[in-house]
């Protein structure tokens, strides 16, 4: 858990401070292209002489912001849909879950590519797409435990003293299902990092010249043998970021598991 939190703190720091940390402007070119590591450029430069480290830092900011916003959106919608679906039950449940099933049935990338290709590769579309893709998973993770928690005695006890259904759902059911939601959110963040960078790699991410781990990888691919750091840099960053969330999810799960009723 400590490791996960430390890694997470490092990521958040990069997102918040991004441009301040970067030694150069990410779009500033220099004649010294595809240079190896040096004191001036710790990770060398890319094909048009831009500083790789600066682009990694600023690009990470973009990638992570998209990830956070998209997952936050998916979580907000998934939470509401899952809670309503599980708690209200009946026809409402059937309708919501079948609609989500349809979304769920598409492979993540196919759906993402289709939406981005249809609506255009803007930042907003990318975020919306990823939010749509991950909403069903989160909604299901909320709905499952809600289905069982709503039958617990304390829910009936709350009802027996005149608590309204809305208050019961929010105060007596939702808090019981927080731990699986936290873990799943963390895992979704890890997956989303991959999805965002993969879409950018395919050219469906935010348009250039904004740096971005996925597009950096795509640009650097052809010069891999000349300047391996231009590939290793963003690749390592992607792995680090998703590893962070996986470690975090694991830590959360262990921490929340021991919590007694």
């Amino acid at each position, binding site marked *: 858990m400590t490791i996960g939190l430390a890694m997470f703190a490092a990521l958040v720091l990069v997102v918040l401070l991004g441009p301040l940390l970067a030694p150069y402007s990410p779009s500033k070119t220099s004649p010294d292209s595809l240079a190896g590591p040096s004191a001036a450029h710790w990770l060398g430069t890319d094909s048009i002489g831009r500083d790789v480290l600066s682009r990694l830092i600023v690009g990470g900011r973009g990638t992570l912001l998209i990830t956070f916003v998209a997952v936050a959106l998916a979580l907000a919608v998934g939470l509401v849909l899952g809670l309503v679906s599980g708690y209200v*039950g009946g026809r409402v449940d059937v309708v919501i879950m079948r609609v989500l099933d349809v979304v769920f049935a598409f492979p993540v990338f196919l759906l993402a590519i289709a939406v981005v290709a249809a609506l255009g590769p803007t930042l907003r579309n990318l975020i919306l797409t990823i939010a749509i893709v991950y909403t069903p998973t989160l909604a299901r993770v909320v709905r499952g435990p809600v289905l069982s928690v709503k039958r617990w005695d304390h829910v009936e006890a709350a009802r027996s*003293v005149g*608590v309204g259904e809305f208050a019961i759902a929010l105060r007596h059911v939702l808090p019981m299902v927080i731990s699986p939601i936290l873990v799943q959110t963390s895992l979704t963040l890890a997956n989303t990092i991959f999805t965002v960078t993969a879409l950018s790699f395919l050219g469906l991410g935010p348009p250039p010249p904004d740096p971005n781990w996925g597009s950096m990888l795509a640009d650097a691919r052809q010069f891999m043998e000349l300047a391996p750091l231009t590939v290793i840099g963003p690749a390592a960053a992607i792995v680090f970021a998703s590893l962070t969330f996986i470690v975090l999810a694991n830590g959360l799960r262990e921490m929340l598991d021991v919590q007694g009723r």
Partner: protein
Amino acid sequence: MTGALLEVRDLTATFNRDGVPSQVVNGISFDIAPGEAVGFVGESGCGKSVTARSIMRLAPEGSSVEWSGRILFRGQDLLALDEHAMRDVRGRRIAMVFQDPMASLNPVMTIGAQLDDMLCRHTGLSRRAARRRAVELLDLVGIRDPAHRADDYPHQFSGGMRQRVLIAIAVSCQPDLLIADEPTTALDVTVQAQILRLLMRLRRELGMALMLITHDFGVIAGMVARVYVMHGGDIVESGAVDALFAAPRHAYTRALLDAVPRIETAGRRA
């Protein structure tokens, strides 16, 4: 009977599972006078809990119940109220204590917060005044050091203490009728006696009527004046508890009385 707090007439409760109706309460009638303690005895599945929940208009989660008949509470038919009006009755006029104190409290809220919620909802007290009242209530039900314990979570309480907390929540708005559905079944025998004494004391002090539901004649004795015996969704026998013990008229009542372990019967007669 005029002046009754609760008059139930021809109450039926029918569960409807996947279109198949099954009637579990078959048109029963009974009365509870203000401040009176009445017992309901019967084996599990005889409909006594469903009867109790019918008065609160509560259905088990995931099932739907159809009621017919009348449940007159102070002359007002509860079955005719809309859900919103019913919510004001629950907790404020009629409250309920459940069987399993381990599961009936919200595990992630402090008991003080659960009491505060209840008080704010029904009495319009401010948060601060509600907390003062909550501490008083915990004291009333015999929680030691109530000011500190109010900030504890349910898992920090023993079963008996949790049942006391649930009773505190139930009586917090001074209801006219307290329904106790097998309040001691999940507890140790020694704790059972304490909880029953507590219920009796609160009934006297707060002047509320008590509907005590149990499968155990040992619990009924000494607690209530009148008793209804339920079997298979019907009330098969009713009357003063002493007369019923002395001369049970219905074969089922005799069978229930015989089911009480002997040593307990001997102890009561001594």
